[in-house]
């Protein structure tokens, strides 16, 4: 059977932050556009819209991705975690706590992307070196902080999640 070519509004079912989610999207729409404009999940930000800044980062099927560079229709059947799904029922995620504690943000536009990226890293590597943190987060741009407080916050959160410090 020939493959159907989909156009207009396409029905997509995906899992977002643990909940089965249905939406309609045109093939041209990015996952970022659907998250923000269709689903009201405005934590992911549009910075550059071309994969450079990381402000729109989400975790899709266990991998960190730039949601501006994913078509929403590609997310069918995927498991997506956005910044809205990072905190637990009992409160903020340790990364969020440590960003506050270390004042690792100023304007805050890049912060959701940093938090999602850092979570993806700690899911894979609970004990990163400073060098590893800096390379992993190289795709997240911040124009306020100079990065140092962010890196310290991530290292501190990692230590706290390991039960140290």
């Amino acid at each position: 059977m020939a493959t159907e070519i989909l156009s207009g509004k396409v029905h997509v079912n995906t899992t977002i932050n643990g909940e089965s989610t249905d939406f309609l999207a045109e093939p041209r729409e990015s996952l970022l556009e659907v998250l923000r404009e269709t689903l009201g999940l405005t934590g992911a930000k549009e910075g550059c819209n071309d994969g450079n800044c990381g402000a729109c980062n989400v975790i899709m099927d266990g991998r960190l991705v730039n949601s501006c560079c994913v078509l929403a229709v590609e997310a069918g059947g995927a498991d997506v975690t956005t910044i809205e799904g990072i905190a637990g029922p009992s409160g903020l995620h340790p990364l969020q706590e440590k960003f506050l504690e270390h004042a690792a943000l100023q304007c805050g536009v890049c912060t959701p992307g940093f938090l999602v990226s850092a979570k993806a890293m700690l899911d894979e590597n609970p004990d990163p070196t400073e060098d590893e943190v800096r390379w992993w987060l190289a795709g997240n741009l911040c124009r306020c902080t100079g990065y140092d407080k962010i890196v310290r916050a991530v290292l501190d959160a990692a230590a706290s999640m390991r039960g140290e410090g």
Partner: protein
Amino acid sequence: MHAISYAAPTTVADAVSILAEHGANARMLAGGTDLIVQVREKLRDTTVFVDAKHIPDLTQLTVNADGSATLGAAVPCHQIYGDDAIVAQYPALVDACRIIGSTGIQGRASVGGNLCNSGPAGDTIPPLIVHGAVANIAGANGERTLAVEDFCTGPSRNVLGDDELLVSLTLPKPADGSGSHYLRFIPRNEMDIAEVGAGAAVTLDGDTITAARVSIGAVAPTPLFVAAAGEALIGQTAGEAAYEVAANIARDAASPINDMRGTIAHRKHLSFVLTQRALRGAVARARGMEVGHGH
């Protein structure tokens, strides 16, 4: 973007029939990190995205019984550097996959996509060339294979016809005593496009080089296979004198342009220096030593 449609074929034959029907307006979509941005910025007239990621032949990474590897065209970078067998056999390709874009880009971007994007600075192309990779292509008139060094024909141009797609890449098994390395020079510390990139693969018998391939990127309309640089190394003792001869050949082969990333003179100089360094790294790895991946 203008009206866009999307198809997710599950077989190569279905993908070929869509490409054949829609011609130049249809394009295979792997990681999308180039294609989606290019379409959004109106750099391409693509109106049909053909998702490569539901076709098993394009998503599998396998080490074959004969020791060669088959890399599906849509396999993302992270899967390549996460595979111990691939890391052991094809370290130059792994070097490139670890430095291309960011962690988020590497989560989606594929080596096959990088090749099909055919940028002169595509980081994975010199490694594919030094590994002797062959492109497996399918189209309306059947299948064909082509050495990767013959794939790109100009900036953003390649041999693929409108009805053709890259299915996979076959990487031959490296001989015993082989090592390889890729590195690049970028004006920033990370997240940039190569001003020059260089890859080298060598095979040693004791201290004697018995096989070598060199490829440089971002110094010509396509990534260059500098066959003469590799040939000059054969029968030589691995060491600085030999590397210098090969690096001079690479510099002479480079025909770069001036642009925002660098000048002709600097790129010629880098072609020499990076070829030397790529050879040092390849030889070190052939001897079983650890070499960083160019961060």
